[in-house]
């Protein structure tokens, strides 16, 4: 039984740009930049230095604590270990690799037969997932092994997130059409770790081809079922998806495990399959390169570390870009430097043309309340904005600004085009700054 979450908006989907584009390999770039921090948690320490030779799949960075390793996506020579621009807008310690185009595989990588996989214990599987550097590939990049270990014993519902509610992005849609078996096999590994007999693949109703492919690939004995949800943004937000599938509300400030749910991205499931069966760490991912001024919208299977410039080159430009986004138009991060690399969480590069420019000529709130009707967290953006502009931290907190998920529904729908999300981000930072440091 599917529930519909409250609020949300329905932006123009624009999925047709890249929907029909088969995932293609990519002429491997000469220079790759691999940031040491591609996940939430402690950044990796580089394990290689300038001049070292690396092989494809070799571990080049790792650290203790909440951290997953990063690997060399190609074989070649380490050209530099230095700070490089990152798609978050900051600079990150990165390993720069000069590709030798030989594709020498790391000697540690061994495929496993299904019998070997069946013999692995839960702990072994989790160790493999950690060592393969797998994180949530929908964009949040939370280390998957931590999610699995924290969910053990608490989770009764596993949800695979194929909702992909952002406009333009079709990477998960293509993945389900082209690699449904790998995706489901990865899901079965998750089910084994979490001791579950059933799981739900949640998909929006605008992905008919993907739904068909998944339905054909599902073995009824596995207990996996497909749930089709009405398309609405932000369906893919974890809390909204859990509500849409199960009707449970994740408590404010809580994790999905608190209501017995664990949500995994479709690309993450495939990465788990690759890590367990092929022994291949997470060094490639599908990226949708789309946008209204792209000549040939594409879905590309690219090595992590490929620069945005190379992706733009592959897609071709049909005009002067206005914004280049890492991600989709609703939550993507606008880039100012196209030398930034694709990371584990980059599901799309969206290139928007000049016609997306909209002027904020009259930023006067008319108290229409459309932001409240759109807010999937049932907050009051209009009041939060008043509090944010007044700078009153107590008032900001009293309007639950910290519960804002920054989905952008309010700012999307605001008739006065007030930059609400920007104000809330700044406001949240002020609240955090005002809190006494943790001891």
């Amino acid at each position: 039984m599917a529930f519909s979450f409250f609020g949300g908006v329905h932006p123009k989907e624009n999925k047709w740009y890249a929907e029909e584009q088969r995932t293609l390999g990519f002429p491997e770039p000469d220079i790759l930049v691999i940031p040491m921090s591609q996940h939430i948690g402690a950044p990796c320490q580089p394990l290689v230095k300038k001049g070292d030779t690396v092989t494809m799949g070799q571990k080049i960075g790792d650290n203790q604590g909440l951290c997953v390793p990063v690997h060399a996506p190609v074989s070649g020579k380490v050209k530099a270990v230095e700070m490089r621009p990152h798609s978050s807008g900051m600079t990150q310690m990165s390993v720069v690799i000069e590709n030798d185009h030989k594709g020498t595989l790391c000697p540690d990588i061994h495929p496993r037969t299904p019998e070997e996989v069946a013999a692995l214990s839960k702990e072994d599987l989790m160790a493999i997932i950690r060592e393969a550097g797998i994180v949530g590939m929908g964009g949040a990049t939370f280390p998957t092994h931590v999610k699995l270990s924290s969910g053990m014993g608490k989770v009764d519902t596993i949800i695979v997130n194929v909702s992909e509610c952002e406009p333009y992005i079709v990477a998960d849609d293509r993945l389900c059409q082209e690699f449904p078996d790998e995706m489901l096999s990865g899901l079965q590994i998750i089910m084994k770790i979490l001791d579950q007999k059933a799981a739900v693949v949640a998909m929006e109703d605008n992905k008919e081809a993907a739904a068909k492919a998944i339905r054909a690939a599902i073995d009824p004995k596995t207990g996996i079922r497909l749930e089709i949800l009405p398309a609405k943004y932000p369906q893919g937000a974890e809390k909204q998806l859990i509500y849409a599938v199960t009707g449970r509300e994740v408590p404010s400030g809580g994790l999905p495990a608190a209501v017995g749910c664990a949500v995994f991205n479709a690309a993450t499931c495939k990465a788990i399959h690759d890590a367990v069966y092929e022994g291949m760490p997470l060094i490639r991912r599908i990226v949708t390169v789309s946008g209204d001024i792209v000549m040939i919208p594409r879905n590309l299977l690219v090595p992590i570390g490929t620069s945005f410039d190379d992706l733009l080159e592959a897609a071709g430009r049909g005009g002067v870009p206005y914004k280049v986004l890492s991600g989709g138009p609703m939550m993507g991060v606008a880039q100012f430097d196209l030398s930034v690399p694709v990371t584990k969480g980059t599901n799309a590069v969206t290139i928007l043309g000049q016609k997306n420019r909209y002027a904020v000529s009259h930023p006067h709130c008319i108290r229409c309340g459309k932001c409240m009707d759109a807010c999937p967290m049932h907050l009051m953006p209009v009041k939060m904005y008043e509090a944010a502009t007044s700078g009153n931290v107590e008032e900001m907190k009293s309007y639950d600004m910290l519960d804002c998920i920054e989905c952008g529904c309010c700012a999307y729908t605001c008739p006065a085009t007030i930059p609400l999300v920007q104000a809330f981000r700044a406001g949240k930072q002020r609240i955090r700054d005002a809190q006494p440091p943790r001891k």
Partner: protein
Amino acid sequence: MAEPIKQMKNPKYFYELTISSSPHAHSPVTTQVIMRDVLIALLPALIGSVCFFGFRALMVTLVSAAACVFFEWGYRKIMKKDSTVYDLSAVVTGVLLAYVCPVTIPYWMIIIGDFFAIVLVKQLFGGIGKNFVNPALAARAFLFSWPVVMSTWVKPGFENAAGIFSTADAVTAATPLAAMHAGSLEGVSLLELMVGNVGGCLGETSAVLLLIGGAYLVIRKVITPRIPLAFIGTVAVIGLLFPQGNDRITWMLASVCSGGVMLGAIFMATDYVTSPITKAGQIIFGIGCGVITMVIRYFGAYNEGVSYAILVMNACVVLLDKVGRPRKFGAPKKEAAKK
């Protein structure tokens, strides 16, 4: 040292990229589009008014709208603020003020009303979105400083329509409300009341045409039907429970269709700026408007109470928004009750 970035090496890759906080997409519905929709929704009533009261209805409306735009532009210009003329909200205020005045109102008087609405009620409080009462209704209340002019009603129909420039040849008539205030609905058929071929303010008489406009606003999602339904529903229930003449059903329908109930419920009480933004608040707001309207009609000296009811409820909006605050996603249910 970092290698020079690729953009610099290959000038063909150099673009001026814009960076800003997400979202990068925007809904095509802007303030201007909303106000345009409101004006479209008001159009049927204007056409009706021209049919009932003659060409002067159109002139009064146009003069009022033009004056509002002028005052809005002039004030923002003098105070060196950004121009808010293009959001069309001043036009809406002007049209609404014309709708709540008699068609015989002198032009100088409606211009004074426009000045009061735009400059004193709206701009002095900070412009669009900041006024706490509905500008058009506040101006109407102000214009009652000339009570005789404001309660002179002409008989509808082309033969009696007032001339464009003069008000002398108007034939005055009692409104259905006055008859109802006196105790019974006589001389007016219910059908005429619904169509609007009765005496009354310029734009308020035709329940049917105003409902068409309201339906358009609901379909275009400019307004939710919460406030109008609560308002009209309350008036209907009170009319049904406490009829003061005729039979219950006739009295109920006459209560709903007469006076400013339709115009007030659909276009005035739903004014974004001066109505609650919370769902529960909107329903209480609508019920409050209905109750006060009927109390004034039954016990007041004057026979109409819609505009005062809305003005009174406008003052309660801040309170209603506190009461109606939604339970946030993931908050425990009892915590919401505590707030």
